[in-house]
């Protein structure tokens, strides 16, 4: 009776994503102690040195080790990305579930609010916030979070609407559960899977929007490094010393890849449709 064991291949993405995440967590935790160079120490004699044994990622325009800056940059970027994700996730899900579950005029108003935020170019919002409160990580987090919660809200609303029609929701109401309990015990568990997927997949874009903000001149403070800033700093050296923006770009791509694949793997894992119909009578 030959039958293929449940193949790892089926969820390869989850494994690759997981492996990359492990590497990133390793770098986050042990990175600073590993790299010998101070990311801020300026030394013009070592300027624009190509990647070599001593400087694995080479040095930038001011003789600072790009490897050290990438490691510290990854930390700051991850901090920003995680915090932005959490804030926008919480705001988004609350709004989404509220408008999805309650429906009616509340839903209408919240939808219009979302349309306003979506239609409003985020460049102005970023400039206004960074302008009034000044640069710095805290304000960049606010600027990014204020725009990104709409994705979660839209998803949470659609999922809530879908779940509301399911029988087991009607049964729950029939059993006389209070609204709040229903949302907690039935709606949230139903959409956690999708939220997790969306959350993991938004890490990459958040780091990239840091790069776009600094490209437009609104980014985080110099000189403490952040991946987006490093990519932008290397922009002028693209031809003569490409490694300066190549490695931060690669690390960002890898981080995004890791989170996205992990997210897609989770998506397959959680997605009810893809669950194998074990047995049908």
């Amino acid at each position, binding site marked *: 009776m030959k*039958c*293929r064991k*449940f193949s790892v291949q089926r969820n390869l993405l989850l494994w690759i994503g997981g492996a990359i995440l492990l590497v990133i967590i390793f770098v986050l935790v042990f990175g600073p102690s590993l790299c010998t160079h101070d990311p801020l120490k300026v030394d013009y004699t070592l300027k624009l040195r190509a990647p070599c044994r001593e400087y694995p990622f080479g040095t930038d325009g001011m003789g600072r080790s790009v490897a050290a800056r990438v490691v510290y940059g990854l930390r700051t970027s991850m901090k920003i990305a995680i915090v932005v994700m959490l804030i926008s996730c919480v705001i988004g899900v609350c709004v989404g579930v509220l408008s999805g579950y309650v429906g009616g005029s509340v839903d209408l108003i919240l939808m219009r609010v979302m349309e306003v935020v979506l239609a409003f170019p985020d460049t102005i919002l970023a400039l206004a916030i960074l302008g009034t409160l000044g640069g710095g990580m805290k304000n960049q987090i606010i600027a990014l979070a204020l725009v990104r919660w709409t994705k979660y809200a839209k998803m949470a609303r659609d999922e809530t609407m879908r779940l509301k029609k399911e029988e087991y929701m009607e049964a729950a109401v029939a059993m006389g559960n209070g609204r709040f309990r229903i949302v907690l015990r039935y709606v949230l568990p139903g959409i956690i899977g999708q939220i997790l997927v969306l959350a993991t997949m938004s890490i990459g874009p958040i780091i990239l929007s840091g790069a776009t903000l600094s490209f437009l001149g609104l980014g985080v403070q110099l000189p403490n490094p952040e991946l987006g800033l490093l990519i932008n700093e290397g922009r002028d050296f693209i031809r003569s010393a490409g490694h300066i923006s190549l490695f931060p770009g690669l690390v960002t791509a890898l981080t995004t890849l890791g989170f996205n694949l992990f997210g897609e793997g989770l998506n397959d894992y959680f997605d009810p449709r893809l669950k*194998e*119909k*074990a*047995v*049908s*009578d």
Partner: protein
Amino acid sequence: MEEEQTRELWRIERLQVFFKTRGNDIMAVNEFSLSIYQGERLCLLGESGCGKSVFGMALLKLLPENAEVLGKAYYKGMETVGMSEKTFARLRGTEIAVIPQGAGSSLDPTMRCGKQVEECLRLHEKENSQVCRQKVLSLLKRLELPRLPGIARDYPFELSGGMKQRILVAAGIVCHPQFLLVDEPTKGLDWGCRDKVITLLKKLVEDEETSVLLITHDFNVAKSLADRVVVMYAGEIVEYGMREDVLERPVHPYSKGLLAALPQNGFQAIEGFSPPLDQIPKGCRFHPRCPHATGRCAQEHPNLTDLGEGREVRCFYAEG
């Protein structure tokens, strides 16, 4: 034998179906061997979850991706299990047709009902649309659908359960198939519709002399439509024979239990539940619920024994 060969539409030899899931592999159909003859109406009877639909789908290669089918099945001498999807597809619709189970979800919600029936015709017989439309309308008339010809232009959500079921029947037989698989035709229908569908099916099948594999858990459907009846339990055949023998004088304790559970026979239900297919008991699969079970039943797994004139049963004590 040769003459036998042509009359025999299907010959199935030790068919097995596995489902690969996260945990382990589940055997939904175990060692199914059977022959279906031309013009014959065979009924697969059993509780829900005994693997009868899986067998039907396996026969027509309609199982989902993670299913694996072993054993052999011959349709008119051609081995189908190993056959490539492309070649088998040529048989679908014209020679082999299906009336699927979920009436509600088997119709494309965004396409008009008439067109969904016509589609099969146009795909195989390549006539112009005018002729096809006429054929479909005449078929729908035979199925006594109301509001003809307007109903052909309606969408599935505008039809009742009974009407949708009849559309499915129309779609199934519009190309005059030789072999028709009917999966739970009366499921989810109210009492009135059920009789109507049964009589319609009976009339149609007799006119067309198509051979039918009927899958149901409903005794009345089996009694009125089937020539031969196969009783299935937990993925295995436990008894089969002519309709009168099995339905009136069942031999296997499970068949007797089923008969006794009918409303007109006093509603004595069999204790316990049929085992989920990933926890199949050792020995005879019915022994935990069988009133006459002995130690041997729990140890040894009985084979199908032949009782003469085409009757077989899978039980040590049910010979006579």
